Structures are given as C-alpha cells and as structure tokens.
C-alpha cells in the first residue's frame, strides 16, 4: 500500500478506536444512570435512594396483586427472586400487566420501603408464539425456554 494511504488508514483506525474508548469510558462511568430501573435486590440492600423518584423493575409476584374494592388502588410485590419490593399504585394498569410478568414501576420509596408508584409500565419479554403453542407448552410442563417447571 502507498505510504500516504497507509498513514491515512492508521488515522482512520485511530479515530474509530479512540472514539470507541472514549464513549466506552463515559458509559462505564454513567452505567448507574443508563440503567432504566433498579432491581428489587438493590432496593433491599439499600443501594436505591429513598425519598426521590426512581424506577424499580422486576416480575410481579404470583398471588400478590390486590385491588381495592372502592378505588383504582392496586398493590403488588415486584421481585427478582432474591428480594421483593411492595408497590402501591392508583390508576389504570397497562393491558399486559399480570402476575408472573415483568413490570417497571416509577415512584418514590417511602420510609417503610413501599414504592408509592405514579406510573406502571408492563415489560414485555422476548418470547413470541401463537396461542396454540403457548397452550401446548403449558400442558407439557416445560416453560418457554425448554426447562422443566
């Protein structure tokens, strides 16, 4: 290769490499802020701030959803199977919200460790299948990843 072109090739590689390193360092330094939510384990171990808005994400614990009779208040537990965070919310839940499904709640942790949520988002997972397949899987005793339940 012509020496001038070789030099320009090195320059291009240099630009690509060092911009990657710079962005890598920035996103490493800001990794806590890039995460959309805290897992319940971080809340339980006190890593999540209390008294200021934050999001907690996890699975809605089976059998934990309780609705009030006279209002839109709903309470449930968010879990990552290591720790659980109780959530209280007044409002309309998204259609895909359900037990044993992912959800992200944003709100403020009160002094008792209850998340007073102002917004609930359903988190969809990466599994896509027709209803018949889901029904067949349900009966076969295997979950979507092919592991026995």
């Amino acid at each position: 290769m012509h020496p001038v072109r070789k030099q320009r090739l090195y320059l291009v590689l240099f630009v690509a490499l060092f911009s990657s390193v710079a962005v890598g360092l920035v996103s490493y330094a800001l990794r806590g802020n890039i995460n959309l939510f805290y897992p319940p384990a971080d809340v339980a171990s006190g890593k999540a701030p209390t008294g200021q808005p934050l999001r907690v994400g996890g699975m809605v614990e089976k059998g934990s959803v309780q609705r009030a009779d006279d209002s839109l208040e709903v309470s449930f537990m968010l879990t990552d199977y290591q720790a659980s965070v109780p959530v209280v919310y007044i409002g309309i839940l998204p259609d895909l919200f359900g037990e044993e499904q992912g959800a992200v709640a944003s709100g403020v942790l009160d002094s008792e460790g209850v998340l007073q949520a102002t917004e609930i988002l359903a988190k969809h997972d990466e599994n896509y299948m027709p209803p018949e397949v889901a029904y067949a899987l349900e009966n076969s005793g295997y979950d979507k990843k092919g592991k026995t339940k």
Partner: protein
Amino acid sequence: MWTFFHKLGSPPWLYAIAGAILRWLVPITLVALVGGMVWGLLLTSPDFRQGNSYRIIYIHVPAAVVALAGYYVMAIAGAISLIWRMKMADVVMKAAAPVGAALTFIALLTGAIWGKPTWGTWWVWDARITSMLILLFLYLGVVALYEAFDNKEAAGKACAVLSLVGMVNIPIIYKSVDWWYSLHQPASIKFSGESTIDPSMLYPLLLMIAAFYALFTCCLLMNMRAELLQRESRTQWVKKIAGKEGRR
C-alpha cells in the same frame, strides 16, 4: 475481475451498473415486500399475549436491523473515501445517509406505536431507545453537515469523520438491552442458540428483513444515480443521457 472494480470508480460505469442492478432488484424487492407483508400481517397466528399488535414487528425489526447495517455501509464508504480518496465512495456515503435516517425514523415511530398498548407509554428514556434516537441524529447530522459546506470535498471529509466517530453507537444499540436494565426486551432472533420467536412467526420476519435489505439497496442505488448525474452534470456522458431523455 479487477478491471470490474476499477470500472466502478468511473461515474458513467457506476451509473450504468447501478441501473442494470436496479432493473431486476426493484421487482424482486416489491415481490418480497408484498409477500412478506401478506404472510406476516395476514397469514400468521396472533401472539399468545399481545394478540395482533405484535404484527408491527414485521416493520419495526427489519427497519431497525437495516438502519444499523446501513450505518456500517455509510461509515465504511466514508473510510474508503478518506483513505483512498475514491470519489465514488463519497457518493455511496452521501446516498446512504437519508435512507438510513428514514429507516431509523420508521423503527422509532413503529416502536412508539407498539409501546403505547404494550408497555403503557409512547416513549421511555431507556438505553435502547435513546441510543436509537442518537443514531437518527447521527444520520441527520451527516446529511446536514454535507449541506453546510460549499466545498464538497471538505464536506465529504467532515462527514466521513463524523460517521466513523458515530460507528461506536452501533454495537451499543445492539448490546444495550443486555448491558443495562432497559424496558425494551432482548433480541428474539438469536445468532447462536434457539430463537425465542416461534418458527411460524420467524420465517415471515426473516423474509421481511431480506426485503428491507433489498429496499435499502434499491434506494441507495437510486440516490447514487441521482447524485452522479448532479455531480457530473457538465460532462459529456450526462449531456448525452440528458439529450436522449430531453428530446422526447
């Protein structure tokens, strides 16, 4: 073999080759797009949890995949034009930017439309969606930067450097759902291991991805032909084409 590559560097040849490719690629693209849409939107079964709203995947995922791949096309063309000073690589880079921007916009828009009924929100500042928005700004930035220069040679260099610096965003977008906690789900199509999307839904999706790649190529070649005519408007070969078309 090598003469073919050298000929690509000559504007009239590139114009003619692009035209020859387009002649058969455009019909193939149309057939694949229509076929994939009918298959995906009408013939597949609804999803077990999302019902019919999941069908937007047949537009959203192909647009996003090709928007990422198209950025590499633009950045690598930029690098070639920086290193070897090939004018035609500069044409490829300039032609790719608006197509990529359109695809990125489609991916963001369909994602928002899907997000409202599924997540319960149009928009959330999670890592995947924010890095995709940065990709849109990078594409638009290349378009705007090119227009900002009067000296088009300097414009080409500046755009090439911008697209090279922005290239770091592509693996970030791709891995964002694995590296950080995000609302966006991880990829359903996996290169290694079994995909978590049922085969009956996967095959029309793969067809749509192929169709979008073909669509990107068509738009890129058409853009390149228009750019070539504009750049070479004073030369004999363009005047010849223009004369042929103009006399009708």
